[in-house]
């Protein structure tokens, strides 16, 4: 799964937690942008995930960003008013503070999604599970968390299959963003059915294999820290400290 520099899942988890913490702590658009830029440089330099795969995994966020920008601009108010329209007892306004807050939230989302996508793209479900167990997380809980990691690529694959099924019946996915979103409505039901069925089938398979009676487990994969991992821990601490102090 990983190419370039490989890291221990615990070190990666520490970095992701610290980057997410820093993104939430900062109240400055410039600092949030800098954080995203630095993390992008880290992804490129380590080469643990192809940049194209990383940016592609961020594509779904692009659908959310315009919605977030519009809604947060309208519903957060503060500072200079650029435009306002009264709606009964309230007014919808575009203000300097609203725009700044909307952009900040959008960049925070990008940082969090970027860090999560990097982690998911470079970590196998087994390594993630083992990392959590070594951090004294109960195995059953670690296993459930690792299942969510497995679910992402599976659901992406399912969605592609469903999209193909509708496109082969003449579904047109060209046009603007709104028409593309509307065109995808016929995919939602098969997708949710597939997700629910996947959950049921997985539950049955686990039960049939004695999931409830699990005690201590061994694993086929092993994890361990190397020099690069200590550099990542150091980076995580630096990011966290700078975000708190600065």
């Amino acid at each position: 799964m990983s190419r370039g520099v490989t890291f221990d899942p615990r070190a990666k988890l520490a970095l992701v937690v610290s980057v997410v913490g820093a993104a939430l702590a900062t109240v400055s658009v410039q600092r949030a942008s800098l954080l995203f830029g630095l993390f992008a440089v880290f992804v490129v330099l380590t080469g643990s995930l192809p940049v194209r795969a990383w940016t592609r995994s961020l594509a779904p966020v692009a659908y959310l960003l315009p919605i977030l920008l519009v809604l947060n601009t309208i519903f957060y108010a503060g500072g200079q008013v650029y435009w306002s329209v009264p709606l009964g007892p309230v007014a919808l306004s575009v203000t300097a503070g609203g725009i700044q807050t909307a952009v900040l939230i959008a960049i925070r989302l990008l940082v969090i999604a970027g860090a999560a996508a990097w982690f998911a793209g470079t970590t196998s479900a087994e390594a993630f599970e083992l990392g959590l167990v070594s951090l004294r997380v109960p195995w059953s809980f670690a296993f459930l968390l690792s299942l969510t990691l497995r679910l992402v690529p599976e659901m992406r694959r399912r969605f592609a299959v469903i999209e193909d099924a509708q496109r082969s019946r003449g579904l047109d996915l060209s046009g603007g963003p709104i028409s593309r979103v509307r065109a995808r409505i016929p995919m939602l039901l098969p997708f949710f059915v597939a997700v629910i069925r996947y959950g049921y089938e997985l539950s049955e398979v686990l039960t049939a294999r004695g999931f409830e009676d699990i005690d201590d487990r061994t694993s086929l994969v092993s994890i361990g820290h190397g020099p690069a991992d200590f550099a990542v821990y150091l980076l995580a601490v630096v990011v966290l400290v700078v975000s708190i102090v600065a």
Partner: protein
Amino acid sequence: MIRLEAVTFAYDGEPVYEGLDLEIPTGDIVAFMGPNGSGKTTLLKLIAGLVEPDSGTVTVETGAQTDESTESPAVGLAPENPDDGLFAATVREEVAFFPRNRGLPVDEHVDRALERLQIETLVDRTPQTLSQGEKRLVSLASVLSGDPDVIGLDEPTSGLDTPARDRLGEHLAALDRTILVATHDTDFVWEHAETALVLEAGTVHRQGPVEAVLGDADLDVESLGLRVPGPVRWAREHDFETPPASATEAAEWLGGGKQ
């Protein structure tokens, strides 16, 4: 004629086809066979325009109509799992999806598709509540209703019991379309397809009439992840040169009608 010229295609850098040249006759039921990963489904998707070749061309010419775009498909594809396509509240709405997208008279095409597959009684049912065989037929009707020149079916017999499988074969035989079937089910191919195309590692291993391909003693069908069709197996076990056309004929042969 469906023509692929020097087609190269890869999934995330993993090559599936490298310079594939292929001509598929139209008007027949054509079976794509081969082991897992040999490129059967990808071939269907290339012909349906769902994926674009990295290089080379795919041309679908059927009668008076030539279609090289995906915007107005002449190729309709039914997925391996019918649940992947079924979304509407009723079978009628499901089957209306394709003609509506193509701008065709909806009611006329829906009624005709349901009638041809003899599933008019399902018209007001919810697709998700149907049996697997019924879902398969609704999925096929939802492609047929769009009046495509070519119908692609991915593993159509998967999950079907024998009667449902036989009915599906009969329905397909009654359709005057080019039907492309990606399948491992050699018995189904033997009974219902005219042309066989055996793929292996992204190349065409064999192509020709079904009897010539699957009945060829020199072709090691099992090494390609396939089973020798029942009639061929029976003929070989009983030292007959050609497989019988039916169980009745086999009984007659055993009775001394053929040496």
